[in-house]
C-alpha cells in the first residue's frame, strides 16, 4: 500500500487514497484528502465530515444517506437536508467522497 507524507506525518492509504489506519486521521489529513478530491472545505463540509466521524465512532459504518441528510438538515437547516445539497458539497457522492475526507473506509456494495 502506498505511503504519503501529510504535514510531516507518514500515513498509509489504499489504491484509491482512503486512509488505511483510521486512528491516524486529523484535520491536516482531511485537508489533504479534500485537495486530492478537488473539494474546497467550508464550514458546511466540516459539519458533514464531523457527523460522519461521530456516527462511525458509534456504529462502525458510515451513516446511510437518509440518516446523513436528516442530521445535516437538523444542523444546517431543512433546506439543506437533502441529497442534492450533499452532492453540491461532495460532487462525487457524499457516501464515498465525504467518507474519504473523514478518514472512513469506503462503503462497498451495490451503491
Amino acid at each position: 500500500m502506498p505511503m504519503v507524507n501529510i504535514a510531516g506525518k507518514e500515513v498509509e492509504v489504499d489504491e484509491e487514497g482512503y486512509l488505511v489506519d483510521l486512528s491516524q486521521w486529523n484535520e491536516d489529513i482531511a485537508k489533504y484528502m479534500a485537495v486530492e478530491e478537488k473539494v474546497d472545505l467550508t464550514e458546511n463540509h466540516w459539519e458533514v465530515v464531523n457527523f460522519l466521524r461521530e456516527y462511525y465512532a458509534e456504529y462502525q459504518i458510515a451513516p446511510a444517506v437518509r440518516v446523513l441528510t436528516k442530521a445535516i438538515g437538523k444542523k444546517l437547516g431543512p433546506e439543506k437536508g437533502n441529497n442534492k445539497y450533499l452532492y453540491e458539497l461532495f460532487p462525487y457522492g457524499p457516501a464515498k467522497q465525504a467518507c474519504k475526507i473523514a478518514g472512513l473506509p469506503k462503503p462497498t456494495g451495490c451503491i
Partner: protein
Amino acid sequence: MAAAEFDIPEIKETIEVPKIHEGVMAHVKSFPAPKPVQDFMGYPHELGEDWKERAIDKMGDLLGKYRSLKVFLDACVHCGACTDKCHYYLGTSDPKNMPVARQDLMRQVYRRYFTTAGKLFPKLVGAKDLTRETLDEWYSYYHQCSECRRCSVFCPYGIDTAEITMAGREILNHVGIGQKYSNEILGKVQKIGNNLGLPGPALEDTLQGLEEDIEMDTGVPVKLPIDVKGVEVLLVTPSADFFSEPHVESLIGYAKVFHAAGISWTLSSHASEAGNFGLFNGNYETMRKVAMRIRDAALELGVKRIVVGECGHAWRVAYSFWNTLTGIGYGADDPFSIELQKQLDHNYPQPQHICELTNDLINQGKIQVDPSANDDMVVTYHDSCNVARASRMGDMPGGQFIIPRDLIKKVVNNFHNMADDTIYESTFCCGGGGGLLTDDLMEVRVKGALPRVTALNTVVQEHGVNFMATICAICKAQFTKVLPKYGFDMSMVGGIHQLVSKAVKLDAPKQAD
C-alpha cells in the same frame, strides 16, 4: 477519483456498431484483492511459481464439474452472430469485448491442454500456451463482462459467455489474482451479514429513522420490523436499499405495501442482504454459503413466506438456484430442508418476487393505488439482465417482463417502452453488473452504458420520459452514477416500488381474505 480520465461517448440517434480499435481497453485493470481479503476467501493473494499448473488443474476441475463449460468451449463455430451484441463492445470498440473473442481467451488455452488436436497441432486449431500475458488479458477482459447473457440470446448454439467469464474469474482467484471489489464484499456478507458491512445496531438505527420519516410524510405509523419471529413474510433485499438513494425509496414502498395489506413481515439482521456475489465469481461453495444465511434466517424466524426485494442477481440465485443450493424452493431432502418445506405456505410461490406480491395484492383488491399520484412522471422500464434472461416471475412464460410492466401501469398513467431490440430478453445491461460496479472500472461502466442510454434518449426525446424504473440495486447505483455523464439527471432512475410508494393508499379499507 483514482480512475483515469477518458472521453464520454457521444449519444447517436441509433445504436451504432463501431469500427474495431484493437487494444483500446487493454489498460483496464480492476484493483486486485489484498492478502486479508484473499485469505478469508481461502485463495492465495499472489502468483506462486506453480501458478500455471494450478490454473490448468482448476480449469480441468471446472470442465469436469460443469459440462456446460466444456460444451461452450467446444461448440463455437465462429459464425459472428454475437460480435455486435455486447454493450461493452458497442461502447468501447475493443474487439476483445466481442463475446466470441472473450470466449476465445479461454478457448485457446482449453484447446492446447484439453484437446488432442490442440496438444499435437496447436497452430492448426488456434490453441495457445497459457502465458502470463494471457492471464493478464483474462483479468482485464473477464472484468469487462457483466455476465448479462445478452450474447447468448443471439448465439445459434446458446453459448453463455457469462459462464466462461465466471470460470475465468474462479481460475484467477485460484491462482492468486482476485478482484478487490467482489471479494471484499463476499467477506463482509459472510462476516457482518450484508455487502455494505452494516452492523445490526446501525441497521436498527437506520430503520427507526425511516419509520419516523414515513410517519412524518404520511401520518401513518408504517413499520420496518427486524428479527421478529413468527411473522408471515421474511423480506430479503439488497443492503443498498437501507443505505442509498434512490434504493431506499423502494424499501419504503415495500413497507407501505405490507402495511396496507396487513401482512406481518420482518427483515433479518443475519440475512440483511439478498445479493449473492458468489454468482459473479463462479464459485458454487461461496454462493451456497451466502445463500444458506437466508435459509437459516427463515428457519430461525419461523416465517411462512420468503419474499425477495428489488435485486437482479439475487432474484436469479433465489429463483433459479435456491432449490438445489439450499432447498428453500423444493427438491432438497436434508432434515432442515424438510423442516423448512413444512414451515412454508405453499399457497404462495417460494420464493416470491416483491413485484409479483404487490401486483397480486392490487389485482385481488387487497390494496388500493392511485396512479394520479405519479402524474408528474413519464416512465419507461429497464429490464435488468438477471431478471430478464436468467429467471422468471409468476406462473406464465415471460412473467418477468409482464408483471413489472403490469405493476408500473397500475401505479402510473404515463408509460412508454424503449425500442423492442433493447428490452425484454434483448435488454441491454446497465453496464455495471456482474461485479463491475466499482470506481476502478468507471471507464468500462460509462462506455458500457452507451446502448442503454441511447435507447433511453430516444424515449426521452419522443415521449418526454423523465423516469426509468428498474428492479435491481446495481442498475440503480450504476445509472445514478453514469446518467449524469451523458447529461441526464441522476434522479431519473429508481425502483418500481418508489412509484408504488407514492401511489399506494395507506388508509384503504381491506377486504377479508
